Structure formats: structure tokens, C-alpha cells
């Protein structure tokens, strides 16, 4: 699914400085714990999170995550936007809570978790 389709499916708006339309999303991960993201994500995913701090962007950079959507109406600060833009990461934001954003994305066809099997 293209990032444009994702944006529409989860009623999101993009953070303009970070936008690029060549990102493909095949799987997603909803999490507020960045250590869990690093422990379980194995594919390139869309990260959905309600966490707002610079470590969200840094985690995405280190994990090769190309797109993040902030849920529950939260907005990234300028430091986060700058780091995302410099590293080619698309930022989105939606007023939906995490559960509904994940649900709508799943219904739209992103059905893979992109995470390793849990032991």
C-alpha cells in the first residue's frame, strides 16, 4: 500500500517537511515502548505511536523505519521533524486512538505485523 493510501485510511495528515510519496507500507506496528519496537519489529513497517520524543525518531532511523504516524491527535516537535526530514522518514498524525488507527489500517489491507515470532 502506498503511503498516500495509508494516510487516507487512517484519516491522517502529513507533516509537510517530511512528505515523500515513494514509501510503500506492507506491515505495521503499534507501540509506545521503543525497546519493544527494537525487540520485535523485523520488517520495514509503519510505526504507529502515541509517544512524543526524539527517541521515537532515533529508533526509526536505527530500525530503517520509513514512516511514523502519531496517534491521539499528538504532534511531533520541530526537533523531531528536522531529524525525520534529514533521514527521509515520513511523519503523519491522526486524531484516531492507536486501536482504531490500527483497526482501520488492517481493514484497508495492511494485515501483516512485520514482527518476529514471539518465543
Amino acid at each position, binding site marked *: 500500500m502506498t503511503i498516500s493510501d495509508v494516510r487516507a485510511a487512517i484519516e491522517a495528515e502529513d507533516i509537510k517537511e517530511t512528505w515523500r510519496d515513494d514509501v510503500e507500507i506492507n506491515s505495521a506496528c503499534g507501540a*509506545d515502548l521503543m*525497546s519493544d519496537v527494537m525487540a520485535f519489529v523485523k520488517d520495514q513497517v509503519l510505526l504507529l505511536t502515541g*509517544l512524543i520524543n526524539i527517541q521515537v525518531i532515533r529508533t526509526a532511523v*536505527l530500525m*530503517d523505519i520509513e514512516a511514523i504516524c502519531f496517534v491521539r491527535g499528538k504532534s511531533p516537535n520541530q526537533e523531531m521533524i528536522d531529524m525525520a526530514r534529514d533521514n527521509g522518514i515520513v511523519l503523519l498524525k491522526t486524531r484516531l486512538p492507536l486501536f482504531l488507527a490500527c483497526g482501520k489500517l488492517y481493514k484497508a489491507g495492511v494485515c501483516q505485523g512485520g514482527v518476529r515470532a514471539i518465543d
Partner: protein
Amino acid sequence: MRFHYTVPGDDFSRAGNASSEMKKALQRLGIPHEIIKRTAVAMYEAEINMVVHAGGGEADIDIDHGCITIVMSDKGPGIANVELAMQDGYSTAPQLVRELGFGAGMGMSNIKRNTDEMNIETGEGRGTTITMKIRIPEDA
């Protein structure tokens, strides 16, 4: 080839700078993608631990003979019980750190999962040195 980074311990927002710089250096060296990712995640987790628990420290990275060796040393309080610290979900991180998305008790096992060898030298009041090795396959 050697790299050295000082990890400041007074600013959580800068935690991870050294790992990000290391990742860029490995990319410039043409190291395989999957090896870079494992190295970056292991080093990032160790760097976060160093900032949260030990007031920062030093990171030395040596790339030689098909192996990346990362040594992270601090002069913090040390790890009282390494066996407990290795268990998923066990954490002594303060609430503030948890609110920032860390301290879930996954850090040490994340390091182990992403490295081929991991050695911890620590003790109460002695600081901590974590040595991590990630081998670069010959056919990579």
C-alpha cells in the same frame, strides 16, 4: 579500523547519538545492511542503559578480521544481578525513563539477540563494561 565516542550522561535526548553516528560510519564502509542493523540496535540499547543508569561513559568500536567489536564502559553503580537484568521485562529504570518509551526491561535481551557474543563485566560500585561482538560473514 577504530572508532571512539563519548556518551554524555546528562541529556537523555542525546542518547543514541553515538549509535546513529556508528550506523552512518558502517554504511560508508559498505558493511551489509543486516549487520549494520544488528550493530546499531545492540549499541543503541547499551547507550540508552549507559545514560539512564550510569551517567554516560565511553564507547570503543573496532572493526577487524570480519568482526565488529563494541566495548561500552561506564563508571556507574554496576549491575547488582546480571541474571535478573537479562530477563525480558525486568527493569530498574525510573518512571521518567519509562514515560520516554524505554525501561521496558527488553534492553539486555535485545543486545544478546543482536550480537554473536556478549560479555558483561560488572559489580556493585565497580561500573559496567559490556563487550559485544558481531561477526561479518565472509560471503556477505
